[in-house]
């Protein structure tokens, strides 16, 4: 089985995030890492291989991002992925999810041209933009079925059976390869790389592709080709002290009701 796991390089959520003058996220000036939500996808791919011992399962980590994004691929390789593909091109900067999904789909086609890809895996969302739309867009572009937000993944042969936990119901969904599968943070904690994994990762194949390698024109991606644009960003204002109602003369309840009504809560 040939699995491609899409991994995103995101700014470290514990550090200060900055924006460029064009309102895109500064991905160069801040520390970045493999999106924690994508670590779950890598982990599930590795567990799949461990559960299906004896089968020939190859795992490729695919990343679209600036030079430094190679760190995200390296982490996946240290965890146990077999090879990495990094699509890096100045023209990609500023791409929204529509444009990014095009690059991912084309890269996945190039990987598939060498060896048929059975499964494309992703996390449930990115930790920076939190759009959650890439799996669906990828499925559409690749003309594959999509099974998303899996919290439990089981498989037998070509059939994958997953559990989707919603707010009001839990669904069991089955899909057949080839398909796109996104997994949630409920699938199980991702492993930490071992020293053996760290050493082995240095020798694993890692290819770097430009847009021209995957047949995408510069004007199909980037800020200008994006369907969405960020108009502005603002830091969340610090929490202000709430309104305090003091019940001195028995009018407290009325004051509370008036407050709730003014906010249209009642």
């Amino acid at each position, binding site marked *: 089985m040939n699995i491609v796991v899409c991994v995103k390089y995101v700014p470290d959520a514990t550090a200060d995030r900055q924006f460029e003058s064009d309102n895109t996220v500064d991905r160069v000036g801040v520390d970045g890492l493999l999106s924690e939500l994508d670590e779950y996808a890598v982990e599930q791919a590795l567990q799949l291989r461990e559960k299906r011992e004896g089968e020939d399962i190859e795992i490729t980590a695919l990343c679209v991002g600036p030079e430094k994004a190679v760190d995200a691929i390296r982490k996946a390789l*240290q965890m146990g992925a077999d090879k990495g593909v990094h699509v890096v091109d100045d023209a990609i900067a500023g791409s929204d999810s529509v444009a990014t999904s095009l690059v991912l789909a084309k890269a996945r086609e190039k990987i598939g041209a060498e060896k048929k890809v059975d499964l494309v895996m992703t996390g449930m969302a990115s930790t920076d933009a939190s759009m959650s739309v890439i799996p669906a867009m990828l499925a559409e572009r690749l003309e594959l079925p999509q099974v998303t937000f899996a919290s439990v993944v089981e498989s037998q042969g070509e059939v994958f059976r997953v559990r989707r936990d919603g707010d009001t119901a839990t669904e069991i969904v089955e899909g057949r390869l080839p398909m796109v599968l996104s997994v949630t943070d409920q699938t199980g904690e991702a*492993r*930490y*790389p*071992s*020293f*053996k*994994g*760290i*050493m082995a990762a*240095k020798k694993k194949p890692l290819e770097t592709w430009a847009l021209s390698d995957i047949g995408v024109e510069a004007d199909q991606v980037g800020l200008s080709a994006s369907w969405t644009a960020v108009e502005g960003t603002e830091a969340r204002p610090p929490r202000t002290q709430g309104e305090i109602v003091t019940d001195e003369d028995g009018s407290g309840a009325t004051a509370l009701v008036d407050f709730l009504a003014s906010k249209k809560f009642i």
Partner: protein
Amino acid sequence: MSGLLSADLPEEYLELARTVRAFATEVVAPVAHHHDQTHTFPYDVVAQMGEMGLFGLPFPEEYGGMGGDYLALCVALEELGRVDQSVAITLEAGVSLGAMPVYRFGTEEQKQRWLPDLTAGRALGAFGLTEPGAGTDAGGTRTTAVRDGDEWVINGSKQFITNSGTDITRLITVTAVTSELDGKRRISSILVPADTPGVLVEPAYDKVGWNASDTHPLTFTDVRVPVENLLGEEGRGYANFLRILDEGRIAIAALAVGAAQGCVDESVRYAGEREAFGRPIGANQAVAFRIARMEARAHTARLAYLDAARLLLAGKPFKKQAAIAKLVASEAAMDNARDATQVFGGYGFMNEFTVARHYRDSKILEVGEGTTEVQLMLLARELGLPG
């Protein structure tokens, strides 16, 4: 980037440091206070360390190891020691006292039997050297092992033995007097499976610190093991464990540097947040200079252990450098812990704060694996001073 991450090390060691730091922050730190308070052994944490391969760091893959080296172990110990010394000493003792003697001096059969479980962290080994009347002065060893047919019969007692009473302790390597030649007592090392009849693990000590580390006195009463459990040559037990202790000093130094660095990092954060008289306390030179000096201690102590570790890896003599590293690193940890608790003021006296735990934990660093005085004695000897 603070501490070890800014050291001049090959990239794979820095990657290991980053990985262990993430593990220490995300997994170890949240439960450190709980285990310290309840004096409980962190089985879950140790199991995860096993899965990460930390117990196998300096061993080759054929014995289940990670194919790394002693420097890799030191890197992991510093990053763990920064957050929780109990967890770090569990790893240090498990590797350098539990598994390393088997790897260094064991027969192929002994290695195959013990190492795969020890290097995977599924089992822990302990090293029974210290006795009520014998520590560094091994001549005082009273424990005996008498040959009876195909067996050794061991009698005696040991004390302060790390990792000797956990649910996953499988092996205790014991030093014992096996014979006397020309009136000289010959000490040998013998592998004793922990479940051998006659091995009594006595209740854990009530310690000042390292509360989540497992430490017990042990008593051996007519403990019988096969003669082939002899580890290394008969009568070479003393020479062998000197080598083990020399290496162990580098590892303890790394752990101590972690503690010293943890005190720096906690103090930098707190001095930037805590305000008094309208400004962060770190804006006062009395506080800032104290923290700057702490950083200098941690940094120089790190250089000392890295130097000793590099000599060890290069196969060069490292006894003196290991003694210096152990000496300055343990003092750096104790000094930094004292300074950090001062920076924290009243909170530094509250057990739930990491610096308070470092204050209690660091004292033993100046005592275990050879006291400060023993390191000074070794140094004086290396310098050729009379005595």
